């Protein structure tokens, strides 16, 4: 399964957050990791795309008071998603072997 850079970042964030993976948390995780802002548009269109590919599953979470009683969109990584992220990571590791920045 072919993955883009942002798709990989999202799968990694979802895997790291586990049961607490939802829109705001994933976004925060990506922004902290990359130091770049992550827009709502990029976030939710990528979530849709990954779900279509079968790499994640989403469900509606419970509403909370700090969200004004509105629900969350909870995200979970699927076995297929784990495999795709793992393959992407291996490819990055292989292609980076021996280059100047990988030995820092």
């Amino acid at each position, binding site marked *: 399964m072919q993955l883009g850079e942002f798709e990989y970042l999202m799968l990694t964030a979802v895997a790291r957050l586990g049961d607490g993976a939802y*829109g*705001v948390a994933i*976004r925060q995780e990506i922004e902290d990791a990359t130091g770049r802002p992550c*827009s*709502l*548009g*990029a976030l*939710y*269109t990528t979530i849709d795309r990954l779900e279509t590919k079968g790499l994640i599953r989403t469900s*509606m979470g419970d*509403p*909370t008071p*700090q*969200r*004004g009683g*509105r*629900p*969350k*969109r909870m995200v979970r990584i699927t076995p297929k998603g784990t495999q795709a992220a793992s393959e992407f990571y291996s490819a990055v590791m292989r292609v980076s072997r021996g280059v100047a920045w990988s030995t820092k």
Partner: protein
Amino acid sequence: MTRIGCWVVSHLTRLLDESEREIVRGDLAECQTPTGRALREVLGLVLRRQAAPWCAVEPWLALLTLVIPIGFLLSHASRSWAEGAADEILLYGRLWDFSYLANPGWRADLISVAARMAAAWLALIGWSWTSGFALARLSRPTVWLTVTMLCVVVVMATWGTNTIAHLHRHHGPSLQHHVTFAVFPRLLRMFLVVLPVVWGAWWGARCRALRVVPAVIGVLLLASVAVVASRGLENSMSFGRGVLPADKGPDGFVVSADDPRPLWFLSLVMMWPAAYILVEATRERGTRRASGA
């Protein structure tokens, strides 16, 4: 977020699906996003959602084969027929006398004018409705954008072309002249084109394909009024655009039976949404039978 910002963001999120709308509003509330950023974020998401269906071929097919050509023809036909009708109504209104009805020649003329007008108006309604319906069936996610585009083309395509009002300008700027040649054609275009397009699109977006029998009957009825209205459609292009000066034909008179008709195919162009609806109805019946078998 300021109260105005909150109001704008809340209205902007209405362009999203209902489930996504609540999630996005919840995310913004949880992060206490400032107004400016919230507006940018929601606008970005809305634009991405609206743009996504355009990655498919159907909306482009609708735009290139329906919105532009049919909008252009509907624009010319509706304006020309509305002005023609205004001219006839004005003439009959000025000269009207019930004694005319006793005269067979006048009576035949009146019936012929009324029949031509009715056929033209019915054809406009039919072509517009089928166009709206076909737009909805071709690409449901983009239907309201393509319908808006069609209405814009209908209004704008005759911009700067010849009009009867222009020919009658020596009559002076009277109120009657303005109502007859400016207000009436716009009203007619609204009721015979824009509203049927919206109605057809609404219908097409809500229901499944039409049943075969009503579709066949509808297409046959539309084809019969289109035959009567076809010459008027061709003349509307020749006159409005001024691209094809009237050819008198062997008898030396314009608008007579022997005039050549180089634009004869325009009626067929106008019938393609109806043909599409018919094909879809037939295909749907095949699918229903296959699933029932």
